[in-house]
Structure formats: structure tokens, C-alpha cells
């Protein structure tokens, strides 16, 4: 446990003494903020139009939660496909490139501890990203009263989704010496998983359709972003994290054979 925490601590400290994490999270917040306030602005304009036209019956469906929060959250999910791979691409790739992997593998730390340490560090960073994202919604209380429970469910879903991506990228970075390759492959796989349900719709066979839809990440975060936490989605993210981390462990083990 001590070794695991030492690895996670070192990883986190490294992220914060180099500009990487600041720049990446800063750019993410810039885009996220833009999307959030643009959709809020649009919402307010449309609200005024509806009122001017006197179509009061529309106001019932026209709420802040669905239009602004849920919509921006699903855009954030897309941003995460870029943010998480870029944050985690250093992981093992950098250790292998600068030779420090030799220190890790000749220390008493097990492959599992090494993988969990790295994952924990990124998870902590992603928790910070989650809190910052939540701060946007806090601002909404100035304009109205968004649903607290739905918003928290959305944030939780975003966080879980980012953890799943982090586990995936942890595995990918253990496969290569190059950070660039780790980053690009990570982004590609994340985007592919995101659009898999779209491919599912065009498939002929029903069973294939089901499988593709189940594999796709968006199938499992869409309901959560709208405030509907389903246990099957929690199970999906849990499975993805567990499978990717065990694969990462196997990949680290295999480094000893090369």
C-alpha cells in the first residue's frame, strides 16, 4: 500500500511541477466554459423569444437542466476523449523512454501496485477536473434553480466515464515507448467507443447491434448525464476499468520478458 501511494504521489507531483497538466486542464476548461456559457446564452435568448411570442405551453419542456446542463455535459464527454488520453499518455511510455521503468521493476513493488499507483494519480487529477466542471453549474444558481440531484448524477457519470478512459489509456501507454503513439491511440480508441452505437444502428444483425451498442461508451453515459443512474451503466464502467487495469498489469508484467 505504501509503495502504491508513493508511486501515485510521485506521479501527481510530476504532473504539477511540469506545465502539462495545467495546460491541458486549462484548455479543457476554456472550451468547456465556452460551450457552457454559449448554451446558457442561447437558452436565455430562446426563453425571451418564447415569452415574447406568448407560447407559454412550451416553457414546461424548456428547462435549464435539460437544455443547458445535460447538453453541455454531453459535449464535455466528447472533450474527455481528448483530455484523458493526453493526461495519461506519459504514464508508462515516459518511464520506458527515460529508463526509470528499470527502477520500478527492480523495486519490491508489484506490477499491480505500479498500475494502480499510476491510475490513482490520474483519478485524483480527474476528480479535480470534475470539481471544476461542477463549478460551472454552481454559477447557474444565479439564473435559476437547476436540479441538484440530476446535476450530481451527471457529474458522477462524467467522472466514471473519465475513469474508464483513464484505465484504458493506462493500458495503452504500457504498450508503447512513445508518448505520442500512446496519446493518439488513446484518443482514437476513445472516439471509436463513443461512436460505436452509431455504427450499431446501421448493422444488419440484431445480436451484433446489441453487442456494439453495449460496447459503446455513449450508450452508458447518456442516461446518467440526464440524471438517470442505472446499475447496468455502473456495471459497464466498472467492468471497463477492471478489464483495462488487468490488461495494463499484464502488459507491465510482459515488459519483464522483453
Amino acid at each position, binding site marked *: 500500500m*505504501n*509503495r502504491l*501511494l*508513493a*508511486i501515485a*504521489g*510521485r506521479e501527481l*507531483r*510530476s504532473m504539477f*511541477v*511540469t506545465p502539462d497538466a495545467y495546460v491541458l486542464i486549462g484548455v479543457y476548461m476554456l472550451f468547456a466554459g465556452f460551450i457552457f456559457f454559449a448554451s446558457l446564452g442561447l437558452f436565455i435568448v430562446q426563453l425571451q423569444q418564447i415569452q415574447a411570442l406568448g407560447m407559454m405551453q412550451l416553457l414546461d419542456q424548456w428547462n435549464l437542466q435539460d437544455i443547458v446542463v445535460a447538453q453541455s455535459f454531453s459535449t464535455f464527454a466528447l472533450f474527455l476523449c481528448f483530455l484523458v488520453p493526453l493526461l495519461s499518455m506519459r504514464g508508462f511510455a515516459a518511464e520506458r523512454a*527515460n*529508463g*526509470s*521503468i*528499470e*527502477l*520500478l*521493476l*527492480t*523495486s*519490491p*513493488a*508489484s506490477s499491480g501496485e505500479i498500475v494502480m499507483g499510476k491510475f490513482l494519480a490520474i483519478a485524483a487529477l480527474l476528480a479535480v477536473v470534475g470539481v471544476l466542471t461542477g463549478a460551472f453549474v454552481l454559477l447557474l444558481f444565479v439564473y435559476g434553480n437547476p436540479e441538484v440531484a440530476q446535476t450530481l448524477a451527471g457529474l458522477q457519470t462524467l467522472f466514471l466515464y473519465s475513469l474508464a478512459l483513464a484505465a484504458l489509456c493506462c493500458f495503452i501507454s504500457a504498450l508503447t515507448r512513445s508518448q505520442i503513439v500512446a496519446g493518439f491511440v488513446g484518443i482514437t480508441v476513445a472516439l471509436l467507443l463513443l461512436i460505436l452505437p452509431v455504427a450499431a444502428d446501421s448493422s444488419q444483425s440484431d445480436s451484433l447491434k446489441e453487442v456494439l451498442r453495449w460496447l459503446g461508451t455513449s450508450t452508458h453515459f447518456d442516461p446518467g448525464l440526464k440524471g438517470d443512474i442505472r446499475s447496468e451503466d455502473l456495471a459497464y464502467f466498472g467492468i471497463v476499468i477492471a478489464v483495462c487495469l488487468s490488461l495494463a498489469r499484464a502488459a507491465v508484467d510482459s515488459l*519483464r*520478458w*522483453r
Partner: protein
Amino acid sequence: MIKAQGLTKRYGGLTAIQDVSFEIAKGEVVGFLGPNGAGKTTTMRILTGYLPQTSGSAAVGGFDMATNARAAKRVTGYLPESPPLYPEMLVHEYLSYVAALHDVPRKERRDKVARALTACGLEKVEGRVVRTLSKGFRQRVGLAQAIVHEPAVLVLDEPTAGLDPLQISEIRELIRRLAAEEGRTVILSTHILAEVDAICQRVLLIAYGRLRLDARLEALRAQGSLEQVFLREVEAAAGPQAKAAGLVEAEL
């Protein structure tokens, strides 16, 4: 303290070392000599648990690498060919991290880091970022990380490679001092004969993946200069039968 028995390592069709056996007693300082690509690094990586052997067995501090690697790793300090540093870390921060990795309890970490810093003459740079250090100082930090958990066994892979003459003599002096501490067992690889002459009591000579010679230094000196012995053995090892057996230079 160190025992290798019939160690063989193949990478695919490449045989890096074959049937290497030796035993090193507590407190011995042994030079692992051989031309580049002879299998020195491979042997050391097996002894430190970085690579598994294809066959044979290795034990360090009485712990077998195959069955009790964690205990063996705990008593071993290892300086790989290029020191495994994190360029963005502070020197003392880095040493404290390595100590934690090797199960040094939190309470003792500060003391042990301070001792390693003093031992390696790093007090003045403890607050510096590793990236900004000269090559000689980085090598010292590499040595400091190898001894910070006070291991009984030190494995040093070409500790003076790439340094200038002044740095080389400093690092040699340092290794001699670290070796003398608490009857530590040291195995260091090099292809520089003078280094063995300066630091070691015993020589293991490896060429083309096979152990050619295992002798005490004074016994060798009686046979003539170290250089003559070295050339004779390496040439003998490079003989036609060695090549026919498919022993190729390999150093990962």
C-alpha cells in the same frame, strides 16, 4: 550473498548468456569484466529481477529470484547503465521516493535520505531539480538511489561510463567507500580494466555470453598484466567453435 547457477538467457533465437555460474560471498567486491555485448547487463538484470532467466537459477541474499523476488529486491541496490532518474524531481524528493518504493518506513526515510546524500556528496544539490545537474552529479544521484535503503548487495552496471576523468576518479572513490560500509557485497560491471584494478578484489570475466574466468585479482597479476589476461581470454572465447554455436553479441 549472490549465487548464479547455470544462468542462461535467450532472446528469441539470440543467446545472450549461457550457463553462467558463480558465487559471491558477503563483503566481496567483484568486477564483472567483459567486452561490450558480452552479456554483463543481461546477467545483472537477472540478478536484480528485471529479467527472468530462460534457465538456471539466481539468488540474492539467500532469496531465490524465481520464488522470492520481492525479498531479494529489498536487499539489493541497483544502478542501471543509465541512472533511472526523473528529470523533473528534486534530488531529495527523488531519493525519498526510491526509499518508499523499497519499503523504508516513513519515519526513517528522512534519516536515510540524509545519509545517502552525505555519502554521495550531494548535500549541496539536494534541493536542485535533477534535470539541471551535470552528468557526474546525476551519476552520484544514481548511486545514492542505489544505497538509500541501505541494501546488503550493490549491483552497479558500468557506473563510470561516459564520465570525464575527474568524475571517474570521484565515482570510483565513492564506490570504494560504499563498498567498505557495513561489509557490503558489490558487483560492478565495466569494460575498463583499470577500474577493476582500482576497486575490486575479484574478477569475473564474461565474453560471448560465457563465463571465461573467475579469479582473485592478485592471482591474475601474477600471470602478467590484466590486459594480457583479458585479451587472451576474449580471443579464446571468440574462437571458431563459439561462433559456430551461434553465440552472438547481445546486449539489450
